[in-house]
């Protein structure tokens, strides 16, 4: 990849223009996939032979849990780019991704607890998967709080970047917790390298829902970072021109 390309992508103005172009497509596709996947899973699939209808929670729980982890990895990558090359846009991405990831992490935990009650007979156990996921939520909260704790934006972004990079160690722990430790949580049913251990009829709406949640996340991330770009670049000519504030 050419370095010029990298630098152009890192320019807030270029990113604002580019994201404005793809935004409607991402939004429509996300809406179709989320609505389709959830409706299909909720209303049209057969109940699970073991868990009955409670398994329908999977169509929300798995996408949000998966997003919570992926968003953290994305956040950590952005944090390291911002830390090493001092790219403003990367720091904006870190600050925009934290609340999105936190909300999906909380949703995964709560839907998991609600699912646990009829399935395991308990809302919560302190086992490896659940505890490491709770730590992820605290990492997100830590990132949000840490940014607010500094007056200087540079110091805040450096501190957040370090926390984000250190915290990434938790991600493989969450991922492999169901294999490394004896846990109440079931193993993964979607496999990439081998055949998934799930009926096609359940798998398709689940994959739709996962794809929809990822696109939704991209959509709200773009919305957030666009607002953040306007806010941080408000003294530049292009933003003033864009908002008709040129004098």
């Amino acid at each position, binding site marked *: 990849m050419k370095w010029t390309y990298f630098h152009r992508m890192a320019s807030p103005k270029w990113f604002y223009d580019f994201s404005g172009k793809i935004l409607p497509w991402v939004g429509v596709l996300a809406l179709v996939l*989320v609505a389709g996947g*959830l409706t299909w899973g*909720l*209303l*049209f*699939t*057969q*109940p699970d032979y073991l868990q*009955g*209808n*409670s398994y*329908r*929670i999977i169509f*929300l*729980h798995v996408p*949000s849990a998966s997003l919570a982890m992926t968003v953290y990895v994305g956040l950590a990558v952005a944090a390291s780019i911002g830390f090493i090359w001092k790219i403003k846009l990367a720091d904006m991405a870190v600050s925009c991704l934290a*609340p*999105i990831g936190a*909300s*999906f992490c*909380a*949703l995964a935990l*709560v*839907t998991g607890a*609600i*699912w646990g*009650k*009829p399935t395991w007979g308990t809302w919560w156990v302190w086992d490896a998967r659940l505890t490491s996921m709770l730590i992820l939520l605290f990492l997100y909260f830590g990132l949000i709080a840490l940014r607010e704790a500094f007056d200087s934006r540079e110091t805040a972004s450096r501190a957040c970047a370090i926390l984000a990079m250190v915290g990434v160690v938790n991600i493989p722990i969450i991922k492999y917790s169901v294999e490394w430790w004896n846990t109440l949580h079931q193993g993964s049913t979607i496999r990439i390298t081998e055949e998934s251990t799930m009926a096609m009829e359940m798998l398709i709406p689940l994959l739709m829902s996962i794809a929809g949640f990822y696109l*939704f*996340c991209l959509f*709200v991330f773009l*919305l*957030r970072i*666009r*607002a*953040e770009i*306007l*806010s941080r670049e*408000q003294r530049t000519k292009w*933003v*003033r021109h864009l*908002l*008709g*504030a*040129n*004098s």
Partner: protein
Amino acid sequence: MYFEDLNALISMDGHGPYVWACYGLGMIVLAWNLLTPLRQNRAVAADIQRRARRERVQQSKQ
């Protein structure tokens, strides 16, 4: 649809409250993610425009 009627859909053989609670919370999270940036965007734009108006007024006074 898998369920025979509305009652079956709501009760889901006793699992209804769990499933519907999750879907309700899910909708809240999606809505929050959607509305927060839109509000933020409006606030930032209004702020920039207000400041520009103020600057214009000051300039015209000078």
